[in-house]
């Protein structure tokens, strides 16, 4: 049975006990879309360079929640709230949420305050495909975080998603909703890790809703093993004068697809997007971003950098939409890539679609290699070639690593990356 059939089959057992996080009508509609569209293929423009075909026949289990394996998780050495998901399902005993005022699971909030969900849930979906529809059809495992007006969360929230394949291949579909009220601020960190030797497939969606003057920082660290497939969508909806800062770092996993969609839905919003991807072996890393400038006077800035070695493949697609009303838009985008080996491939597509005239938009994309002259400079000073290359690659990565604003976390991730770049 292929993945699509597995999803359809699983839905039959899931439907009767589904929560109201998503209305029954919407669930039915979504599952119909899954049946119709199937799992995305390279025939679709959005999936042109990323092929999921090789894992479609894996006998995934869709509702696997094995015993908590706390020692399989690497916890970051920072002071933070902690949430642990194992195979897409929240594990309360491993989590530590003491002190967060408004925190619930999607399921419990749909029972307690259905109005909240209908206000914020699933409000922005610029692209639809079979996987996103599947996530929506099954949405109930995941967290709901609400930061009240004027409040700043005192500590960052770190969410660990563990794929435990010790009992066979798993398919997990968490979905989260984060709402920041007026003037609120929060830091949200997603970390993907795995244990076991079998294939895992995570199909996650996180939605962020930013009210006026709110401030969000969100990070995504991908450090699963070489049998992990990951398709993740983060959507940020901005209201007036809100600010978001996103950084997506990928240095492991078999196939990783990160979608980051930003909707600037009111004036004077600001969004910063950063990405770093390190490919080696036959890793495939795909970053799709969208900045949708719907209203005037917004600012967006995007920087994605990648280093690709061995037979790895990198994909970057950065869309900037400037809609008709979005005058006085400033939008910048840059994608820089280094290819280290003969068999590495980079496919990049920076894409601007502009319908307003009073705008400043620019994008740039480069693919090249380490600077010969810089290497020569270092070697002339007695630094061996391998080390000189590493230094240059570290410097290349630092542009993005420096955007991690939590010092202890920055240090730890920088060290991990340095370890990866060591010859």
């Amino acid at each position, binding site marked *: 049975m292929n993945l699509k059939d597995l999803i359809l089959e699983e839905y039959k057992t899931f439907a009767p006990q589904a929560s109201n996080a998503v209305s029954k009508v919407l669930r039915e509609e979504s599952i119909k879309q899954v049946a119709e569209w199937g799992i995305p293929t390279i025939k679709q423009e959005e999936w042109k360079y990323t092929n999921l075909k090789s894992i479609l026949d894996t006998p995934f289990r869709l509702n696997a929640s094995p015993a908590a394996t706390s020692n399989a998780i690497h916890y970051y050495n920072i002071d933070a709230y902690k949430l642990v998901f194992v195979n897409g399902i929240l594990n309360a005993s491993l989590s530590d949420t003491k002190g967060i005022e408004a925190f619930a699971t999607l399921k419990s909030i749909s029972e307690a305050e259905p109005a909240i969900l209908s206000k914020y849930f699933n409000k922005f979906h610029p692209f639809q495909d079979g996987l996103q529809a599947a996530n929506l059809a099954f949405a109930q495992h995941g967290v709901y975080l609400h930061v009240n007006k004027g409040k700043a969360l005192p500590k960052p929230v770190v969410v660990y998603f563990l794929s435990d394949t010790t009992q066979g291949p798993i398919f997990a579909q968490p979905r989260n909703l984060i709402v920041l009220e007026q003037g609120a601020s929060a830091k949200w960190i997603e970390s993907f890790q795995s244990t076991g030797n079998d294939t895992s497939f995570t199909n996650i969606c996180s939605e962020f809703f930013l009210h006026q003057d709110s401030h969000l920082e969100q990070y995504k660290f991908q450090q699963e093993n070489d049998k992990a497939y990951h398709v993740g969508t983060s959507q940020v909806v901005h209201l007036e004068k809100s600010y978001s800062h996103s950084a997506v770092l990928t240095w492991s996993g078999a196939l990783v697809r990160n979608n980051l969609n930003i909707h600037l839905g009111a004036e004077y919003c600001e969004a910063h997007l950063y990405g770093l991807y390190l490919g080696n072996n036959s890793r495939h890393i795909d970053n799709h971003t969208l900045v949708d400038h719907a209203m005037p006077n917004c600012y967006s800035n995007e920087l994605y950098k990648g280093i690709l070695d061995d037979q790895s493949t990198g994909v970057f697609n950065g869309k900037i939409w400037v809609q008709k009303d979005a005058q006085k838009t400033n939008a910048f985008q840059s994608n820089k890539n280094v*290819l280290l080996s003969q*068999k*590495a*491939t980079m496919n990049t597509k*920076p*894409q601007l679609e502009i319908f307003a005239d009073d*705008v400043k938009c620019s994008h740039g994309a480069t*693919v090249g290699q380490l600077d010969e002259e810089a290497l020569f400079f270092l070697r002339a000073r007695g630094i061996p070639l391998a080390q000189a290359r590493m230094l240059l690659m570290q410097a290349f990565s630092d542009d993005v690593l420096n955007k991690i604003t939590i010092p202890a976390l920055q240090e730890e991730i920088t060290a991990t990356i340095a370890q990866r770049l060591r010859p």
Partner: protein
Amino acid sequence: MSDSNKILEELTQSDYKYGFVTNIENDSAPKGLSEDTVRFISAKKNEPEWLLEWRLKAFRHWLTMETPTWANVTFPAIDYQDIIYYSAPKQKISLSSLDEIDPELRATFEKLGISLDEQKRLSGVAVDAVIDSVSITTTFKGKLSELGIIFCSMSEAVHEHPELVKKHLGSVVPITDNYFTALNSAVFSDGSFCYIPKGVRCPMELSTYFRINAANTGQFERTLLIADEGSYVSYLEGCTAPMRDENQLHAAVVELIAMEKAEIKYSTVQNWYPGDKNGKGGIYNFVTKRAICAGDHAKISWTQVETGSSITWKYPSVILKGDYSIGEFYSVAVTNNMQQADTGTKMIHIGKNSRSRIVSKGISAGKSQNSYRGLVKVMPRAENARNFSQCDSLLMGDQCGAHTFPYIEVGNPSAIVEHEATTSKIGEDQVFYCNQRGIDTEKAVALIVNGYCKEVLNQLPMEFAVEAQKLLAISLEGSVG
């Protein structure tokens, strides 16, 4: 701000200069497309059996294909049965001198500013004039043949140089390439053929002038240009059409082949009728242009100035097969009113040390949509491939759109690929600067636009650069604020 708005409004009102119709008797095929139409065209042109087979193969393949929809343009479905696929101006059987050409025809070309008279030798441009997809005449033939250069219509070439045509026709753009090439291969009626022998530097610009005259016709011409080892040629192409309310289809195929150390410079000034202010009428320009640098050190340069057509959909491409080969693409695309353009280029790097350069300047005004769509592909064996792309968009007015879809696929670590793009409008500060120095707003806008396009216009041969600049000026005519 209101000034420039007014300018833009007036800009949209400038008229299409070439919209006249010439009364020439036509010899047409009946409307519609079937195998019979293909046979009719082939028979009409007295073609050899292999070409008919080739056409039929293309037609049968076309039947299995679907209209592509990926381009960023919208138009109602085309009824392929409502088009006349062959229309030739009726004329006396054969021409020994230019004087025998139908005076109406000659007048047409005079109006277009193209002199077919050899007296105008001073202008030094050899012209192949194609009206309603049939080549009318080719000038300077004798002089060119002294050098061994073959420059004639495609139908002539089929008869006189079948070995060259057979070998190269469809070698760069195969009949199965896409929907419109399959259609073109099945029904193409004429076009230009050019062969430059080894080591010859073509002493003059070669030029083809295309004009659609008859109503309800589609123009399907085919150009094949071969530059043998070490040769050089500069080739110009111009297009106009009468103003008509219905849309007319132009689906041409251009194939260029450059052998070792050969250089081809191909320039286009495309000024098909763009439709009226409300988007009624106009030409659908769905053209496939592709070149191959077949040998080492070959160089191919595309330059295009696109001002016409209601829909432009074309991507002049270069396959850089030879080592050290060079591909260039310079483009200015102006869209106004309801025009839509989805244009760009493809640079496929196969050879080592191959280089390519893309400079694309889009100007959108009125309610038009202007897209750049490009592909830079570096194959794994293309060591040290180098590409630089720049695509800028200039927006005039708040109703138009500018879009960029650059695809970059790099499979070799020694390649260096750079892409940059900007989008902006004419700065008020720039206009103010000019005003301050006594240059009125209209002139200032023209000055800025001209400066913006300079990089591309400079690439055009002199005769064409003048025409292109005039064209840009026409677009800006009457735009005093």
